[in-house]
């Protein structure tokens, strides 16, 4: 019988047994030394660490003993903008849960304790931070180890995630691995080795973008009234080097892990079968400490089945949500219908048909975003011509086309800055002074800057080149085409998703538009 991870609010009262035991165990782990691989500090540092930041935030000082070099090698392993994002975090979560369970049992708790998850996508009430993490004290009046002062959200309490941030549109991604030039980004991210330097694609996969990255920024935020471009004003969840120090981090990632389980079981979806993924990364293995003092070395293939050993867990709800089919919705739109035409499910997706992405437009160089910002993207007549033909053919077929027309993607390249907590919504072709809320159909997606500081460090693995973010805008372009727009240019607007993001700023190397398929 596998361990069952349950949705935290389904467990009952705020201080249900599972949550209370979690708090107790976190408190015990915090009593352990930095040098102990099973301590709270060591486990958090496996995700990310920086001595200056941890010192400023009060987690260590000059006298704090550091682990030996062989143990230090386990720190800062976190995998982002890579196809290892999901398997690495699954192994990380497993090791953490195994250590926490050992403490729970040692303290007299249940032997079947399992890490709860936070399903913020469930309904409006679920978007509120679970209450046990917001209370300063436990029921007995002692300090609550789950409470983190450096958790700001958008500056208002209780911390509540905006509706779009919990979108599950990532589950509609057809393939796991990102395509050429990040087009499409794939559910799990681009193919990379462990150390994916500046020469390798650095785009977020679909589920990493949304909801993962966005939730990090929405929960961590920046201290109200301070400069969100300065690291010392940010919440723990806002930066990879501190995120693991917030106890809600683990429930967030359990939900992301659950989404992977759901995605893999959906019809037509499959994890990679490429040996480079299954047996990788070849350049450096993944390693996690366990409660018995050993180190667990693992590859992606060891974590694809959560019910198999050693993982041995499942989720209480692995039911795929009912989502409108991306292709069917698109074909219906092109056919001028509100609902999907009959047989739309048989339409062959461009993603499945293959083909190389083709640049059809770009901004005139760099774009600097500071608050609400507009940027014009010029489209190339030759590329747009074939796109128009493709769209017209599909529209003329009245939804009866056998193959999806060309897809269009907006690629935000080389995002650089220091405002890790910022979340911007990206709109296409809305009037300059319009209220974006009036144009939900023109929302391309959410751009979270989680991890941007690391990606912008000149001496770091990204060599200061930042990361890429890709949004599919096929539906928006379809609508523009049907409205008679000449598609000579696109007006892209970056709109801060909350008040905390308004003062943030960042740079973009180029905004590009790619076409996939004919």
């Amino acid at each position, binding site marked *: 019988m596998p361990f069952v991870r349950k949705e935290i609010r389904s467990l009952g009262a705020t201080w249900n047994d599972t949550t209370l035991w979690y708090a107790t165990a976190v408190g015990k782990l915090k009593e352990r030394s930095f040098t102990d691989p099973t301590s709270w500090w060591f486990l958090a540092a496996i995700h990310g660490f920086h001595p200056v930041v941890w010192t400023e935030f009060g987690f260590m000082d000059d006298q704090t003993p550091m682990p030996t070099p062989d143990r230090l090698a386990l720190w800062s392993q976190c995998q982002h903008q890579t196809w290892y994002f999901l398997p690495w975090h699954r192994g990380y979560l497993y090791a953490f849960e195994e250590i926490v369970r050992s403490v729970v049992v040692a303290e007299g708790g249940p032997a079947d304790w399992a890490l709860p998850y936070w399903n913020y996508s469930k309904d409006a009430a679920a978007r509120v931070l679970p209450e046990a993490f917001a209370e300063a004290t436990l029921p007995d009046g002692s300090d609550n180890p789950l409470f983190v002062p450096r958790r700001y959200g958008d500056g208002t309490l209780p911390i509540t995630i905006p509706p779009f941030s919990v979108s599950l549109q990532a589950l509609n991604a057809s393939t796991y691995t990102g395509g050429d030039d990040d087009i499409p980004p794939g559910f799990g991210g681009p193919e990379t080795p462990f*150390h994916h330097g500046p020469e390798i694609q650095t785009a977020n996969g679909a589920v990493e973008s949304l909801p993962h990255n966005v939730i990090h920024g929405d929960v961590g935020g920046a201290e109200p009234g301070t400069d969100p471009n300065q690291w010392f004003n940010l919440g723990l969840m806002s930066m990879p080097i501190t995120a693991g120090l917030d106890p809600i981090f683990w429930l967030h990632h359990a939900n992301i892990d659950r989404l992977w389980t759901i995605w893999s079981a959906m019809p037509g979806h499959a994890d990679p079968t490429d040996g480079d993924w299954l047996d990788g990364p070849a350049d450096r293995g993944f390693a996690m400490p366990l409660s018995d003092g050993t180190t667990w070395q693992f590859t992606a293939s060891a974590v694809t089945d959560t019910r198999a050993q050693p993982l041995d867990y499942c989720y209480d709800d692995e039911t795929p949500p009912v989502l409108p089919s991306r292709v069917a919705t698109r074909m219906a739109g092109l056919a001028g219908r509100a609902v999907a035409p009959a047989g739309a499910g048989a339409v062959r997706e461009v993603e499945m048909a293959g083909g190389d992405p083709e640049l059809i437009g770009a901004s005139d160089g760099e774009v600097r975003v500071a608050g609400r910002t507009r940027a014009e993207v010029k489209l190339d007549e030759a590329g747009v011509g074939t796109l128009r033909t493709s769209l017209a053919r599909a529209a003329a077929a009245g939804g009866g086309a056998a193959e999806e027309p060309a897809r269009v993607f907006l690629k935000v390249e080389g995002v650089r800055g220091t405002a890790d907590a910022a979340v911007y919504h990206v709109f296409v072709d809305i009037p300059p002074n319009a209220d974006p809320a009036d144009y939900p159909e023109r929302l391309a997606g959410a751009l979270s800057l989680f991890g941007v500081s690391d990606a912008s460090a000149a001496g*770091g*693995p990204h*060599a200061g080149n930042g990361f890429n973010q890709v949004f599919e805008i096929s539906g928006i372009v379809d609508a523009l085409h049907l409205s008679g727009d000449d598609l000579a240019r696109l007006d892209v607007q970056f709109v801060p998703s909350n008040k905390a993001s308004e003062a943030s700023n960042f740079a973009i190397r180029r905004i590009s538009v790619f076409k996939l398929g004919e």
Partner: protein
Amino acid sequence: MALSDARHAPVAAIVALCSGTEIAWPVPGAGAAAGHRPGALAWLIMLLAMAPLLRIEVGLLWAAALPRRRLTAVAAFAGAYAAPWLALGFAALAAPAPAPVALAAGGALVVAWSCAPLRQHCLNACHARPSVRAFGPAMLADAGRWGLRTGALCTALCGPAMFLATRLPYHLPAMAAVVLLAAAERRRPPRPPAWRLPLTGRPPLPWEARIISPPPNPAQT
């Protein structure tokens, strides 16, 4: 064709570069580096051997260009990239063969440069991706600027060693060794500048690679 007059070396180099004919190295002084016969062809071979190192940049440029302008973009990049190398090649061909003492001193300087923090700065800069516009002459200018920048960095990084290699016996193997060294260095991720031998030292820990300054002390501001 064999030209042994140093004054004609640039002309000889151009002829050789165009014809692919190897020329004799001009040796103005008797006994100095006698028997070494590197030439323009060797330099050209070296330049072509370095081309695979540009696979990353060319791939990025290819993807970043409109399909009908891809070849133009790559040509602009390659032409600009080659310029600094050709300039150094002409200088190498024109320069007189050094005395052994000067050769030894040059070798010491090359070793020192190979270990210098400023050189690590250049290596890190090789990883930077500039913005390349897609339309009009701006695309050519950006691709050319990227090529020139990359060529200048490569010349600064490997040019001294390559220059020295041309003055050594068995200069072709020596030049090949420099190319291999450059390829190995190019594959390494950026790291904080410091004095270190090439290809040595452990990779920086992630927190060492990102320099973060403590926040300003309010009492001092």
